[in-house]
């Protein structure tokens, strides 16, 4: 598959949590061809991003939905459940980014480890859903993770299915970095080293030069760009106008976020190569 140029942005205006304003920003993001919308950012706590992801899932169709999760105001059991639900509701378009600020050293990494262990407690092919035999699932595919980290001890299994993506796409921000060796996406500023990740997105301003960035993409220096929005809807229109031509090469509508962005599940992060499979049913439901 063609290597996609990834377009990403973060929104952290409190008004994004008001339905009319939120919908305007989400529509502008999809119109601009954005791949990822990161809700919330380090240093700002305008809303609970996981709640807004759930709301955005049914009113968007292509956009990757990334929740910032503050390490100090969340528990991996709750986070694993919320992101699993949202990944189902969005057909595999979920991402997350753990914000370490204010947390003791290692807490954000522990959050990532615990949630990953909970998602790995459910096998991709756990569900059977066979009405005739009465077997709902294959219990041999469900494991207690017994995760035992420095901050979080979580027995499991979690009462949430493995997400369709396997694990939601993990985004690490170089300016609020956490020590994860196998993140999916790193955000970094020019001149600084990007955290380890499958793909690297350069943080740029809306008026950055698309041709120059395209050249750096072609040279393999970057995999795309990330914008820090302060006036979501207006800036997204400008982004669409200036950068839209760079993303026209990856429109495959049916694919999930990992397929579309070329982000296979890291084998170091997950005990299985894929996400949950829901058996096809023949219910009398119209």
């Amino acid at each position, binding site marked *: 598959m063609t290597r996609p140029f990834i377009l990403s942005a973060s929104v952290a205006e*409190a*008004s994004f*949590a008001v*339905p009319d304003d*939120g919908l305007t920003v989400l529509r502008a993001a999809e119109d601009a061809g954005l791949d990822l919308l990161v809700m919330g950012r380090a240093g700002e*706590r305008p*809303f*609970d991003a*996981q*709640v*807004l*992801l*759930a*709301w*955005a*899932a*049914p*009113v968007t169709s292509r956009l990757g939905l990334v929740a910032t999760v503050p390490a100090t*105001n*969340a*528990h991996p*059991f*709750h986070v694993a*459940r*919320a992101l*699993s*639900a949202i990944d*189902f*509701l*969005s*057909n595999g378009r979920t991402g997350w980014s753990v914000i370490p600020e204010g947390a003791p050293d290692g807490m954000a990494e522990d959050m990532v480890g615990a949630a990953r262990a909970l998602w790995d407690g*459910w096998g991709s092919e756990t*569900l*059977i*859903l066979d*009405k005739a035999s*009465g*077997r*709902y*699932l294959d*219990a041999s595919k*469900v494991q*207690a993770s017994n995760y035992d980290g420095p901050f*979080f*001890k*979580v*027995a*499991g*299994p*979690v*009462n*949430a*299915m493995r997400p369709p993506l396997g694990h939601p796409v993990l985004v690490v921000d170089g300016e609020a970095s956490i020590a994860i060796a196998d993140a999916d996406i790193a955000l970094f500023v020019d001149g600084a080293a990007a955290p380890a990740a499958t793909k690297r997105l350069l943080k740029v301003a809306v008026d950055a030069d698309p041709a120059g960035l395209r050249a750096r993409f072609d040279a393999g220096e970057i995999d795309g760009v990330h914008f820090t929005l302060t006036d979501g809807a207006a800036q997204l229109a400008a982004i669409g106008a200036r950068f839209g031509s760079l993303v026209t090469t990856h429109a495959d509508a049916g694919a999930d976020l990992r397929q579309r962005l070329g982000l296979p599940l890291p084998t170091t992060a997950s005990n299985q190569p894929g996400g949950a499979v*829901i*058996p*096809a*049913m023949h*219910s*009398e*439901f119209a």
Partner: protein
Amino acid sequence: MMDNQIHLWAFLQGIGFFPSGWMHPRARPEGVFAMDYYARVAALAEQGRFDAIVFGDQLQSRGAGGRTPERMAMPTLDPVSLLTAMAAVTRHIGLVATVSTTYNTPEMLAERFGTMERITGGRSGWNIVTTAHPATAPNFGEADLPPKDERYRHAKDVVAKACELWAAMDQEGPALPQGRPVLVQAGQSADGRDFAARTAEAIFCPAATIEAGIDFRNDLRARVADVGRNPDAVRIMPGLSCVLGGTEEEARSNHAAILDLADDALGIEYLSESLCCDLTGFDPAGQIPVDTILAQTLLPKADIARAITPAAEKGTPLGEFAAHFMRHPRGHNVFLGTPEQMAEMMIAWRDAGACDGFTLQPSYMPGGLEDFVEQVVPILQARGRLRTEYPGSTLRASLGLPARETVTA
């Protein structure tokens, strides 16, 4: 507002009221993993002019003694996420999420429900629970649940602190349309009822008979008045499941058909979960293993002994006991009859002061909800006992409560 109106809530735990419900031809068990299912369910509830959709919750996976059941519908997805997604595709229905005060901080609760309240445009509700299942503690790094009285004391402080934080969020803006989520409670014990009387604006309860409903509602209204609140500003919403039919006989045969979907193995898994002891290795034709159950259960042993001893002393075989246990849901009103009879029963309960409305627990999903909305709702509306239009856009408006109240814990 007319005071003889029947309020409706839809309690949509997983796949329906009956453990065997997921196997029904009109059940859609794969739907609980798909947005189109939730959009359909939410549209049905709005069509039926329900006040709210409620999701129950647990903070442990189903099972007993470390064994995951194979024949019961699970897992349950996160209720806040499901309800918030349903808000995006509806305009009026309230959305009530069950969330624990024991395993969330006030800051987590405030941020979560404050955001939900804003993005739903004032349709959020919080069913406050303290978490009673002992298997939850190890998911949060603890060996044991705190004792019940301590959990309720803590809950009071958590709700009070969350209310302070919502007041601050509301002032800072954007405004929280209802000031904070509607507070809902389901406690049955004396501790639970007192907590509900001080805090809740709507209360669920099981009530198998009209007399039980009247007793509960009178007791709660007295407790509400005792703490200086207006009893008319609290909605009492007992649970109600149903199996309908064109005739009474047909309803009974439809009910039998649902129960017959269950086999011994499902019954034993269900009993294992309820007693918190894995019984799947025991012979269904053999004795109820009382000693093993009492040795292994994590639930209060006296309660469990009360539940199993009479059958054990009679020599009831384990499989038969399990089947009986599953067929007789404790404490809930399961109505069997025609849509006309159901509407009459509901009106009679309302007129007798047994409730302010009902928390419908469809027998299987989505078929059970479809039947109720298509067959019973029009009768209630024709009799002038259920609204045909929503009175406003917030959950408080649907409940007939003042736009913003200042009740705090």
